[in-house]
């Protein structure tokens, strides 16, 4: 029952029980977000630094709101506006942050493993808000909370994840977490975007979106990074949309009550048609809403996590 993690570096390191506790805690925090006074004093006096060395709107805003609703002081630094552009190393930046005595650093970084590197060197808690193509644990946790709300359970669900599997940290975090929660994960994407050996993380690999989506309870579409167009990975966006985009015809193959998810930001008309994105099966904004509650749960649980080790 007790949570004994000081850091949240990835869902790889969380147990099924940890994930359940995070989801249950998030459910309790959801209520605060609908009050007229959206603030509780739980983390009063704690300082949280959101260090985003990569662009982000949703995740950063979500972490910042989560911290503020728990009464923590949140401070943001972004890569483009910091000394990183003047050539400072990550370690030096971190050391300078540390002597200002933050309690939690939330970090997004383009290099896989950057949060781990900081966690080994700093005294405060570190939460990974996305590192390279490695993990994005809070996204996977909010995805699973959304699935649980709509399906009542995760055990036995068929989850199809479609898109650029190779470059997606969302996929890796979801793979670890969904497998621990007992889901049956199916991946689909072009061969150029499917890393070899990914099935060893616990997934069935398809190169046809229809095979993955067939009878699925959950269809999760991934963002195609537009800048990859014209590179060897992806000839044209039109071709991608035709073979791997989710439209009404493909969605019909899934279960009638299947939900459609997307971590955002969406490329309408590329990986997902507008009809599906705005259709009755989409829960995309519900994911964003759950993001605040999940991040409140993570901030709360790591704040007491060190003491809980007994």
């Amino acid at each position, binding site marked *: *029952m007790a949570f004994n993690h000081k850091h949240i570096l990835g869902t790889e390191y969380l147990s099924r029980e940890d994930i359940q506790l995070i989801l249950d*805690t998030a459910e309790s925090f959801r209520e605060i977000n609908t009050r007229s*006074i959206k603030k509780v004093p739980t*983390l009063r006096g704690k300082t949280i630094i959101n260090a985003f060395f990569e662009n982000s709107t949703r995740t950063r805003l979500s972490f910042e709101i989560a911290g503020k609703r*728990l009464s923590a002081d949140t401070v943001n630094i972004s890569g483009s506006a910091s000394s990183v552009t003047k050539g400072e190393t990550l370690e030096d930046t971190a050391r300078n942050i540390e002597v200002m005595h933050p309690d939690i650093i939330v970090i997004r970084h383009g290099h896989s493993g950057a949060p781990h590197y900081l966690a080994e060197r700093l005294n405060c808690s570190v939460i990974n808000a996305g590192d390279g193509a490695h993990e994005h644990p809070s996204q996977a946790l909010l995805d699973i909370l959304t699935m649980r709300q709509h399906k009542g359970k995760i055990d036995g669900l068929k989850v199809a994840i479609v898109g650029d599997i190779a470059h997606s940290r969302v996929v890796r975090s979801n793979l670890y977490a969904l497998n621990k929660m007992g889901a049956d994960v199916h991946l689909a994407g072009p061969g150029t975007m499917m890393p070899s050996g990914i099935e060893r993380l616990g997934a069935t690999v398809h190169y046809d979106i229809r095979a993955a989506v067939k009878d699925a309870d959950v269809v999760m579409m991934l963002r195609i990074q537009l800048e990859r167009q014209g590179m060897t990975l992806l000839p044209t966006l039109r071709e991608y949309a035709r073979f791997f985009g989710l439209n009404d015809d493909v969605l019909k193959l899934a279960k009638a009550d299947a939900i459609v998810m997307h971590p955002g930001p969406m490329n309408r008309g590329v990986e997902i048609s507008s009809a599906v994105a705005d259709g009755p099966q989409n829960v995309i904004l519900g994911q964003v809403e759950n993001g605040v509650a999940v991040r409140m749960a993570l901030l709360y*649980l*790591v*704040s*007491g996590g060190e*003491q809980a080790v007994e």
Partner: protein
Amino acid sequence: MAEQGTLILDKAGVRRALTRIAHEIIERNKGVENVALVGIRSGGDDLAKLLARQIAAIENIEVPLGTIDITMYRDDLDSRGSKPIGKTEIPFSLDDMKIVLVDDVLFTGRTIRAAMDALMDLGRPRAIQLSVLIDRGHRELPIRPDFVGRNLPTAINEKIDVVFDGERNPLEVRLIKS
């Protein structure tokens, strides 16, 4: 566990104490108009349910009933760690209501402080009153109950165990010596 220690109240004793408290709540508030019960998790919520039933039996009025979880308002996150957070469910407006907070055991008063802060964040009650089954002393804050089932002087290292059955009905109260 339940077999240990000294029996303070048996099932009938708990029921009589709650019946008396129900009468006192009605008397103090001259009826139950604008009165609502809010039980503190866990233990107080079950007692509040019983109190509401008793009040309904006497006055023929169902008073609004809510439960509150005070984990988010604790002052010991650093020393005790992150406890699981329960649900707060108050399905009515607190504004201008006379709220009777219900808890099983009153000890340091810190739980009640947290519960009052939590209530204030949810609305603006006209008054907050406090009802407890056992007052065991050792207050660390200037808080006193309005309705008490049993005053029980204890040593600081003793423990009060309010035992519930499978349906969350109180069975008995025991004093455990350490």
